[in-house]
């Protein structure tokens, strides 16, 4: 069993109006030091033992569906997890 954590974020070159709004909100709350906020997505995938190439499969699904390479980057962490 593997637990995979996938993080999808907007590319640096892409403006993030949501992050900008949150940053301005933090600043109006008095947190002047928060220079920038970028909002992304976090997903947890559970793989069973039938998947032999976990890393290859994760890359594949990230590119095919979980992220849109035109505007987003992804990274992932793979953890071995014990059977429930």
């Amino acid at each position, binding site marked *: 069993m593997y637990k995979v954590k996938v993080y999808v974020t*907007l590319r640096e*070159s*892409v*403006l993030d*109006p*949501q992050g900008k*709004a949150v940053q301005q909100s933090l600043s109006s709350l008095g947190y002047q030091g928060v220079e920038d906020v970028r909002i992304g997505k976090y997903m947890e995938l559970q793989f069973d033992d039938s998947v032999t190439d976990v890393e290859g499969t994760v890359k594949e699904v990230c590119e095919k*569906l*979980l992220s*849109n390479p*035109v*505007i987003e980057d992804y990274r992932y962490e793979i953890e071995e997890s014990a059977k429930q």
Partner: protein
Amino acid sequence: MKFAVIVFPGSNCDVDMYHAVKDELGEQVDLVWHDADNLDQYDGILLPGGFSYGDYLRSGAIAHMSKVMAAVKKAAEAGKPVLGVCNGFQILLESGLLPGAMLRNKNLKFLCRTVELSVVNNETMFTSLYEKGEKINIPIAHGEGNYYCDEETLAKLQANNQIAFTYASDVNGSLSDIAGITNEKGNVLGMMPHPERAVDNLLGSADGLKLFQSIVKHWRDSHVVKA
């Protein structure tokens, strides 16, 4: 001419599209469910607006994996007209039939009003009945219509005349005010504004009708032998 309006779970402009083609344009049209795998009997494919699969993950991301999209790609490769409106445009972007992606509107608001568009390219099968530079009034209704692509793609869109419509003024933050683009071949058009909601003066504008009439004219010119 026979059209297919593709219906996904969450489509909500499918009936408007159907009405525009059947009653205002006067052509044949079927509503086709997303699990269809063959669109060979249709001459034109229409992807309507809405919130397919609840916009989960990204707008259009789940819909572009559905069975019917393989048949839509086949129709596009065969040179048939494929029109995606609003969510339909987002699905075409996700499927790679058109370049680029959509971001949330610059002001983060869902925008629902009639806007003025400029016809940038009137030499496509979708726009031939408009004048070049013509200003038309078409409604928009979207939260993610802020068109984005990299500089290289934008240069290519401009060089190949693939920008069909632009907003007359900045509406949602779209790059170069892009409202609608075609593929390189010119037979796939994606646009955020809703021409099917502007097909009768009773609706506030009939400026969208010429888009559908252009498609039919192109089809007649190339398929119907004149006596």
